[in-house]
Every structure is written in structure tokens, then in C-alpha cells.
């Protein structure tokens, strides 16, 4: 509101001058009133400063030091970039980034394709009339895509395991994509004229209410190849000797399935609301014009739910980067380090009392999350909303 709610001193003086003498309570009320704009905002600011910013800065200090807990408190020793160095170039490189080696043909092809894509993206942006800030801001996503692309080329595509960075991105990208597609599909189905919509709505919402560690254990129970409900199926299918737990990709997919089971309800419920908010007139008009259901969806419904969809996915992506309970419970990061997310990586480091490494990994996570989310927000959400 452009109106400044706090009166200037002179105005207040005049206001009080014209009023009769007031009690202490009234004066307190007036004080509250005059400072309302601060009273509304400051509690949140202070809470965040104390419980979020202070620990964040403290963690940053820890990330650059080695901390030992011992009798009488902590011993802190600054080690500069060593913790980060260890993750990016040192003995933990395989753990965070992956194992490096010669590039395979597929690695070359993919890496060059990604590079070409990024160059094309840069060129397209430069042609469209770049600004200094815009270019600066885009350097991050460009660098990130390029870096992740080549990292994938050097590791998985060249037949070597990758580290927690790409595992986290796998959860985020594949997990969120699955959740988006299924969530939207369900919401679309549920938004149609069907009976029992309220029943489905509550039912589909259920998984969101279960504590993630509960879900972790439940899915471990379900997927047990000897005691789980599907073990007879496994045996019958001749897969008695196969276990998802020993295959990296199967284990990762399994975690994504559990994660999706929990989070599809969230996507579903938000998009259902969005679908139901789309005025019927347009689609009815279009159907009279002979448009097919798919055409109606693509041309009319989708543009209208796009802003909601983008925001929902932004929330989802932010939460997905933090995934920790499910891999921790279901596989403890195994087989090998195949299912270990960055958050879990930091947790494990913390458990072994290596607080410096733990904070360093956590900060790397923070960095990639911020770059990804801000890029997504600026390049997808804002652009779509503006257009």
C-alpha cells in the first residue's frame, strides 16, 4: 500500500492535541497502531535471523574449519577451502562428483550435444537483446547445465559410478517429472465429471500425511523380496534371485517410487484446484468449434494452469533437493553410494563427527539448489506468468 501508515511526528502531535486526555491503555494502543507496520513484520524477521541466518552463517564458518568436540567445548581450526577442495578435487571427489576416467564415445556425444545446446541457448539469448544483469544471472544456469552434462558424460555415460551430486539431481529431475505427470494426470481425471470426486480427493491426499520415515520403512517392508507382499510374485516371475537393493538404478528408482507415492498427492491437490478453476466457457466454446479433448487441453486448459503448475513444481523441486529420510531408511545410501543424496551425504559426515565436511557438502547443496531454483523461477515461472 502506498499509504504510509505511520503518521509523521507533527501529524501525530496534532492528532493527539485534538483528542481528550487518554488513559495509559489508549496510549499503548496508539503506540501499537503507529508502529503496526513494524510489529507485523519484525517477529518473522527476527525469528528467521535467529534461527535461520545465524545458523547459516555459523555453518559457513564451520565449512571453512575443522571442528573437534572435546572436553570443554570445541576446537576450531581454520582450514580455508580444504573441506571444499576435498569434495571437489580430493579424496571425496568420487563421493560427491563421481569417479573420473577416459570418456567413452557416448560420453563424447552427450557432452558435445549438451555443449551445443548451451551455445545455442546463449546465442538465442544474445540475439534477443541481452542486458548486463540478465547475462550475469544466466551465467549460473549455463555453467550448471554444462557442468552437469559433462559430469554425466564422464561418469555414468562412460560406465563409472557418479556421486551424490548427480544422484540428487536424478531424484529432483526424474522424481519431480514423474510426480508432475502422474499428479497432473490424476488431477485432470478427477476434475472431470465423475462421481465420488470427494472420495478420491481425500484418498489421494492420504500419503502426504504419513511421516517420511514411516514411508521409508513401509516401502522397505513392501519391497522385501522374501517377506514382502510381492515376494510370491517375484518368485513366480523367476526373479527370485534378483533384488532391487543390489542394482543401483533399481534402488534409485525404488526410492523415487516411494518419494512419488508421498508427493504426488501434493501435486495432485494443487493442480486439481487449478483445473477446477479454469472457466468452463472456453473449453465448451472450443468443443463446439470441434476441438478434440487433447486440443482443448493443450490450447486452452494448459495455458491457464501453467502458472500454478510452475509454482507447484518450484515448491516440489525445493523440497526434493532436501531428500534425506527415504534413502536413509530404505537403503542407507546403498548399494555402494548409489542412492545417497547430498543431504544424506552431509548427514553421514555429520554422524562421523566430521562437521567441516558436513557443512561443506551442505553448502554445496545450498548453492546448486539456489542456482537451480532461481533459474527455474526466473526462466520458467516469471516468463510464463508475464506472457
Amino acid at each position: 500500500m502506498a499509504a504510509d501508515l505511520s503518521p509523521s511526528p507533527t501529524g501525530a502531535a496534532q492528532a493527539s492535541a485534538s483528542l481528550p486526555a487518554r488513559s495509559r491503555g489508549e496510549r499503548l494502543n496508539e503506540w501499537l497502531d503507529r508502529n503496526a507496520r513494524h510489529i507485523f513484520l519484525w517477529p518473522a524477521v527476527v525469528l528467521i535471523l535467529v534461527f535461520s541466518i545465524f545458523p547459516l552463517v555459523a555453518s559457513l564458518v564451520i565449512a571453512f574449519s575443522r571442528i573437534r568436540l572435546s572436553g570443554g567445548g570445541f576446537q576450531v581450526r581454520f582450514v580455508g577451502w580444504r573441506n571444499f577442495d576435498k569434495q571437489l578435487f580430493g579424496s571425496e571427489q568420487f563421493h560427491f562428483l563421481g569417479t573420473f576416467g577416459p570418456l567413452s564415445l557416448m560420453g563424447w556425444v552427450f557432452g558435445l550435444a549438451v555443449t551445443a545446446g548451451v551455445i545455442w541457448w546463449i546465442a538465442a539469448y544474445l540475439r534477443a537483446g541481452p542486458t548486463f544483469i540478465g547475462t550475469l544471472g544466466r551465467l549460473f544456469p549455463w555453467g550448471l547445465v554444462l557442468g552437469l552434462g559433462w559430469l554425466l558424460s564422464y561418469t555414468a555415460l562412460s560406465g563409472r559410478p557418479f556421486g551424490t551430486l548427480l544422484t540428487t539431481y536424478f531424484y529432483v529431475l526424474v522424481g519431480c517429472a514423474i510426480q508432475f505427470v502422474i499428479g497432473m494426470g490424476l488431477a485432470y481425471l478427477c476434475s472431470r465429471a465423475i462421481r465420488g470426486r470427494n472420495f478420491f480427493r481425500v484418498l489421494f491426499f492420504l500419503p502426504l500425511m504419513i511421516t517420511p520415515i514411516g514411508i521409508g520403512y513401509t516401502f522397505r517392508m513392501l519391497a522385501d523380496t522374501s517377506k514382502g507382499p510381492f515376494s510370491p510374485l517375484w518368485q513366480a516371475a523367476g526373479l527370485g534371485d534378483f533384488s532391487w537393493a543390489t542394482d543401483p538404478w533399481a534402488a534409485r528408482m525404488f526410492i523415487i517410487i516411494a518419494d512419488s507415492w508421498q508427493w504426488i498427492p501434493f501435486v495432485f491437490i494443487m493442480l486439481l484446484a487449478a483445473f477446477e478453476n479454469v472457466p468452463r466457457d472456453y473449453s465448451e466454446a472450443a468443443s463446439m468449434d470441434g476441438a478434440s479433448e487433447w486440443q482443448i487441453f493443450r490450447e486452452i486448459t494448459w495455458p491457464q494452469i501453467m502458472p500454478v503448475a510452475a509454482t507447484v513444481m518450484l515448491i516440489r523441486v525445493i523440497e526434493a533437493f532436501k531428500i534425506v529420510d527415504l534413502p536413509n531408511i530404505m537403503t542407507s545410501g546403498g548399494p555402494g553410494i548409489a542412492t545417497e543424496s547430498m543431504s544424506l551425504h552431509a548427514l553421514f559426515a555429520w554422524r562421523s563427527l566430521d562437521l567441516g565436511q558436513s557443512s561443506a557438502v551442505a553448502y554445496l547443496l545450498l548453492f546448486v539448489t539456489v542456482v537451480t531454483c532461481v533459474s527455474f523461477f526466473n526462466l520458467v515461472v516469471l516468463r510464463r506468468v508475464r506472457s
Partner: protein
Amino acid sequence: MATAKRIEIREMDKHYGAFHAVKSLSLTVEPGEFLVLLGPSGCGKSTALRMIAGLEEITGGQVLLGDRDVTHVLPKYRDIAMVFQSYALYPHKTVAENIGFPLKIAGKTKAEQDAAVADAAAQVQLGELLGRYPRELSGGQRQRVALARAIIRRPAAFLMDEPLSNLDAKLRGFMRAELKRMQKDLGVTTIYVTHDQIEAMTLAHRVAIMRDGVLQQLGTPKEVYRDPANMFVAGFMGSPPMNFVAGNATGAGVKVGDRALSLEGVRVREGTHVSVGFRPEDAELAAPDDTADLVAEVFIAEMTGDETLVTLTAPDGGHIIVRAPPDIEIEDGARVGLRIDPAKRYYFETDSGKRLRADD
């Protein structure tokens, strides 16, 4: 009941960054007066009203309510009631709760509230609707609730921001009359913002016409209608509005097409672009001969009941509307002459819009 107070605005300014929305507006509204702020959308009239209410910060100048400088006083201490274009009824409160809300805020007892609500509701004939919610009311009823909420507090002044614009035409006329009557009965100083000149003409004691943040003219409806200060005011007032034909000043008068209209004592340098204005009722159709002041082509004729409005295409390409008797028979595309009452012509400098008067 608070006695009606004078509202005085001194050189009030409003800037939004580089945009100068209200430019040094000064006017005084006498106690009990009904002043209408009139102008097209974006002229700054609503901003001015909101500054008087205290809802917008004043960039420069002063607002006085009675003898009190309220320029920087919070809205709640100004003792002003406002009716919004949207009525601003609280959807989660019943009619009675809506009307009684100002008293509830003021800490009045429930009994006092109930009595006052009943009283106010009776004044706007809402008695039987008190238990309903706004969504269950018609547009006119909502309007009344908003009014009742404004009057219940007996404020020192009413501010109304296009309160009738959401109603259909018939209801609008009816509510206009009621509003006028109510203001008269209550005797509360009222500032009313509208872009509808009919409302302004019918309601106002005085009309203030604004354009681009600048006050153009302040006067009674009759004054601004009969004696507009400039071409803008002239063109804004009246329905249909004043007609203008543009020409050049020559020795023989204003040359429009192949005719020249006499200047009737107005002195102006030759070659000046001059527009001649006349109201639709001040011209009559005639044969397109030499006696006609202008010759034009009929564009269309519309019969409205008690008269026919004939739209002509003027020599300068503009449209001219003339009132004609209802039984007139005329064909589209016909060439007709136009005779304009010389005493009721207005002359303006085309470029500046400045009024040219005979005694200048």
C-alpha cells in the same frame, strides 16, 4: 451527530515517482455542500479523493477538515466516511454486522450498535434484509448497505468514489435521486467522484472538473454547462456533448469548409485555428442553401422517443449531433444545412483549448 465540516484543500500534490497525478489542487467545500469531482478516468480525481480520506500519502500541500490540519493524520482519526465503487462490503459479515462495523470498532455496546443499525437501515429501507449476507443482495441493495454503513457513524464528511457506476442505468437514476435526498436530509459535507457528467449535473451543488491532475473549472452545474472555461469542459458536459467544428480565423469569421461563421465580437488574430462549439439543441436543420451556416451530410438519424438525434459528418470530417423533432423525415447521406444560434456559439483556440470571449 458531528456537525458538517468544511473541507479545504490547499495546493495538494501527488507524485508517483515521475508521474505527477494531482497538480497543485486547491478547493474548498463548504459545510453541507455536495461537491462532485468530475473527469475522465485517469484524471486524478480518485487519487485526490483518496488523499482527502488519508488512504494515499500526500506529496505536497495540505488538507484541512474544519479548522484542523489532517494532512498527516491517519484515516481513522479523520472522522470521514467513504463509499467505494465496489461498496467494500465484508462478505463474511451480515448486513447488520456490516452496517454496525464502524460502531463496533468505536467500542460501542451491542445495544447501541443495534439501535443505530436499525435506524440507519430504516433510512435506506433495508430493514428486512439485516440478517442476510452481501452475496445474497442485489446491486442496489448492496449500494444501500454501503450507504447505511457510511451514515451510521454521522461523520463530518462523506467521500464517494463512483458509487453508482456498478448499477444498471435504471437503478442508477433512481439511486441518484435517493442519494441526493439523503445528502440533503443529513446535511453532511460530501465529495463525490464520478466520470458521469449527468450524475455531476444532477447531484452537485458545485462541480469540479479535472483533467490530467489539473482542476479545469469549479462552479455550479449551470455555470459549467452554460459557461465552460475551456474546450475540455465544454466537451465534457452535456449529453450528447457540445459539437465542435474546426476552422481558421479570417476577416470574415471562422472559415469552415466553404462557409464562414461569424465571430460575434470575438477578436482573434487572422490565421489562428479556432473551433466553434455549439450544443445539439442550439442548432437546427435547414436546407443546404446559402443561408445555412454549415452544410453537412447526414450520417445517421436515431429516434429516441421525444426527439430525433441526427448525426452529421461535418466538412472537417468530424461528427455533429443535432436535436431534431421526433417526426422529422431524413435520409442517410442527404446533404443538409445547419443553422446555429449566434448567441449560443462558443469559440475556442483549437490548439490550446482556451475559451475565446467577446469581451477579451
